[in-house]
């Protein structure tokens, strides 16, 4: 333990936003075809600091502000990618996908298939997701399930700075379209402080985290908690709290929804027999149901009890007490873990 603390004392730590930017900057230096475009990504540095500092190094030719014209610039990214460039297009809030879904769903995700493999679409679509800061129903959804449901795209959801950097390197290098969904609350920006956890040691050198590899963020033998994004940290907090009562929860961070690492979940459930799935997306037809279905299909005999914790099927409210009520908190996760053990 002392050695671990010592190690942590000497390593550089980054916020998730800075880790993402470091990966993007590295890939832009290595490959002239990588560029970034979106609303307020150049002069402002991204409203969630997703591009902070990039303009200074790369200029307006490669860090491009665009008008509020999601269909146009995401469509432009698809075209550029098909011609061999490696665009990163930022959809400021995932909630805004409505106006540009044709470009995302019908072009970006499908053109490789529609062309019989004659074109690939090596682009990254970044989008901010999540609530917990009272910005109402059109700015606070996670919509993991919506994007993961559409075939043709890979879907990434980091929860720590270390993962954010490694997954971003992999996303930019991937020859397929990747949707990279970052939770605002994890970015480490001044006006929206992150919980303890997402700021981690981050190596200077580049490294890629392969898609489809879930990470066991906490080992435990009594209950398997499967989650992603902000709720990794809430689940870890719940697990630490329950440890005082002798309940040993394992916390699995999915890291990518497509491809989904079913194997790691099944192995864990085979040990614990009890499964809690936690998600900040809507309860119905989403990630929680998908995970439980996969475990039921392939590991039913191991499953003794199951519970899901998600946002009830109502649009995210604006009022703070109401938003707090619908977004799962640490106590909700604790309750679910206790429930599957009883």
């Amino acid at each position, binding site marked *: 333990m002392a050695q671990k603390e010592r190690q942590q*004392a*000497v390593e550089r730590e980054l*916020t998730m936003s*800075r880790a993402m930017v470091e990966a993007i900057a590295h890939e832009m230096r290595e490959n002239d075809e990588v560029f970034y475009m979106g609303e307020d990504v150049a002069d402002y540095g991204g409203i969630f600091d997703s591009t902070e500092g990039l303009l200074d190094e790369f200029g307006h030719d490669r860090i491009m502000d665009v008008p509020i014209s999601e269909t146009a610039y995401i469509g432009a990214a698809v075209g550029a990618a098909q011609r061999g460039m490696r665009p990163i297009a930022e959809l400021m809030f995932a909630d805004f996908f409505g106006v540009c879904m044709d470009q995302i769903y019908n072009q970006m995700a499908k053109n490789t298939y529609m062309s019989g493999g004659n074109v690939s679409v090596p682009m990254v679509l970044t989008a901010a997701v999540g609530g917990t800061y009272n910005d109402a129903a059109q700015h606070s959804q996670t919509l993991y399930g919506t994007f993961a449901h559409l075939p043709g795209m890979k879907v990434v959801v980091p929860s720590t700075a270390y993962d954010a950097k490694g997954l971003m390197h992999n996303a930019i290098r991937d020859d397929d379209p990747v949707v990279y969904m970052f939770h605002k609350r994890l970015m480490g920006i001044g006006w929206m*402080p992150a919980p303890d956890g997402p700021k981690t040691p981050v190596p200077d050198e580049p490294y890629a985290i392969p898609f489809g590899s879930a990470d066991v963020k906490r080992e435990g033998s009594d209950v398997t908690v499967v989650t992603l994004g902000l709720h990794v940290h809430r689940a870890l907090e719940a697990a630490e709290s329950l440890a005082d009562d002798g309940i040993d929860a394992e916390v699995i961070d999915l890291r990518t929804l497509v491809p989904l690492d079913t194997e790691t979940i099944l192995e864990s459930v085979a040990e614990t027999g009890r499964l809690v799935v936690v998600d900040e997306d809507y309860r119905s037809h989403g990630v929680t149901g998908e995970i439980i279905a996969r475990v039921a299909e392939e590991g039913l005999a191991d499953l003794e009890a199951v519970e899901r914790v998600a946002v009830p099927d109502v649009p995210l409210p604006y009022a703070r007490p109401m938003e707090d009520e619908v977004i799962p908190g640490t106590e909700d996760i604790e309750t679910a873990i206790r429930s599957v053990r009883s």
Partner: protein
Amino acid sequence: MSGTDDRVAVAAADVWPDDVEEDETAVVVNWFAREGRQVDEGETICEVQIEKVSIDVPAPVAGELAEIERVEEDELAREDALGWIEPD
């Protein structure tokens, strides 16, 4: 970790913008190093926010970050030190 005379302050004044109102305070938003870490001169070691603007704070010298005086979410004024570095 304190007590030596040759320590160099990570001074808020070094990054304090000239056009900030006189009685304005800043808030420490992020530290990117813990006590005991060896830092390079010019490396961003923390981030403060003044009048809603985030400002990176570079290490004034290379050395060991010996002490963090203002932790995250602490307020600070222009004349304050954020921490102390023992130079190489």
